[in-house]
């Protein structure tokens, strides 16, 4: 059964590639926004199946990658405290700060724990009332409802020993930032499927019309990505710039309003610094004033720290689709997933790490 389906999927994939080939008349550059999409593209070699001249570049949608070095250093400062149980999603453990990573801190005796869901922190806070439980609340809009619910419940239950270190980022300001760059190459986007499951896609409509770029909200499976690419190429060829929804089986234009209600009860939009990219105005969430008692930055008074990124790292240009991992002299040499120099190598969803995982550092010039 499994093999039959795989065969069917392969045939469908070939048909989609054929159709792209049929409608495409000139070169186009399309960016997939999500790290999960990047991973799927590189793993299945989808970019290499596409006709010549059609280039996929990889976007900034890896929240672990773009969490600023300052924020990671703050996390480490808090996690080092003997009274703290520091909780994080697993992907964050190997991300290097200015001095090592959370995994190393744990080995040195810090109480660092991986949680499956933010709600696990409620259990820990109840179980260890004499300890301070701190959750590293990172993520795009997809993760915000879960993190917001943690804070809302902590307040409702009066768990004063539970706080969150918030480093939330939003997709639309990042897309606008890319399009405003004088070096921008991106002509169309595969939009973020699961972000839009929460947010819907109304907020992408003004971006598509202002910058005259098609945005096709797309899923994560190979067929989703090929179909999203086809829909984008069709629009580009027709000179259209609409928001379309390839992922309609999961989401509608309004997303999940109930989830958004809790997000905006707890968080408000704020400026945010992105690793590799820099500060983007109104591109993240911070806790509302009413929830300040659960703000780890206030509680532990972690100051801004001076940080330095390696000068040779080009992750900022990769995150904006200006360059590819191969364009970096450090890629696969001094910069590897075990010793990452910058944002796009630090997590499996980063473009450099995905290229490395699937052996692309061994094949120079593999992209069109």
């Amino acid at each position: 059964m499994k093999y039959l389906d795989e065969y069917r999927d392969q045939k469908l994939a070939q048909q989609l590639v054929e159709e792209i080939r049929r409608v495409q008349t000139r070169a186009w550059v399309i960016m997939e926004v999500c790290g999960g999409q990047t991973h799927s593209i590189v793993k299945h070699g989808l970019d290499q199946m596409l006709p010549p001249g059609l280039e996929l570049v990889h976007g900034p949608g890896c929240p672990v990658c773009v969490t600023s070095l300052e924020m990671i250093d703050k996390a480490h400062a808090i996690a080092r405290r003997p009274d703290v149980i520091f909780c994080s999603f697993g992907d964050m453990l190997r991300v290097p700060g200015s001095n090592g990573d959370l995994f190393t801190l744990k080995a040195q005796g810090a109480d660092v724990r991986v949680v499956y869901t933010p709600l696990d922190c409620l259990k820990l806070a109840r179980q260890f009332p004499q300890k301070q439980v701190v959750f590293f609340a990172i993520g795009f809009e997809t993760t915000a409802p879960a993190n917001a619910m943690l804070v809302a419940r902590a307040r409702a239950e009066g768990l004063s020993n539970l706080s969150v270190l918030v480093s939330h980022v939003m997709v639309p300001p990042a897309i606008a930032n890319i399009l405003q760059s004088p070096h921008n190459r991106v002509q169309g986007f595969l939009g973020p499927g699961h972000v839009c499951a929460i947010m819907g896609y109304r907020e992408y409509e003004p971006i598509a019309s202002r910058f005259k770029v098609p945005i096709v909200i797309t899923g994560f499976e190979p067929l989703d990505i090929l179909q999203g690419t086809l829909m984008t190429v069709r629009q580009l060829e027709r000179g259209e710039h609409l928001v379309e929804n390839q992922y309609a089986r999961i989401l509608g234009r309004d997303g999940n309003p109930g989830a958004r209600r809790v997000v905006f009860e707890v968080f408000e939009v704020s400026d945010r610094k992105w690793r590799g990219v820099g500060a983007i105005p109104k591109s993240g969430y911070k806790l509302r004033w009413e929830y300040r008692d659960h703000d780890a930055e206030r509680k532990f008074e972690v100051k801004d720290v001076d940080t330095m990124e390696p000068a040779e790292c080009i992750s900022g240009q990769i995150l904006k689709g200006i360059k590819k991992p191969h364009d970096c002299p450090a890629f696969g040499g001094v910069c590897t997933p075990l010793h990452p120099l910058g944002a796009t190598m630090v997590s499996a969803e980063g473009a450099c790490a995905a290229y490395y995982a699937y052996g692309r550092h061994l094949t120079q010039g593999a992209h069109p």
Partner: protein
Amino acid sequence: MCLAIPGKIISAFEQRGLPMARVQFGPITREACLAYTPEAGVGDYVLVHVGFAISCVNAAEAERTYRALEELNQLGELEAPVVGGGGEAA
């Protein structure tokens, strides 16, 4: 990290005022919060992200997506330890 995994609700219950469920993902069963999918009930399939159902999906779609994720080795978050069950976090 924005990946969401489809699973089937096998039981539903309330925990300190939050609607919760046991959700089956292939061979693994985990708890998920249903606060954001109030329409979902036992037997329904939901898309789960970091322990929260964010959207409903149909059964065929759920099966297809689960297999695709399995192939991508993207089911790691389901292996995170259960907190409160006495287990030490990895």
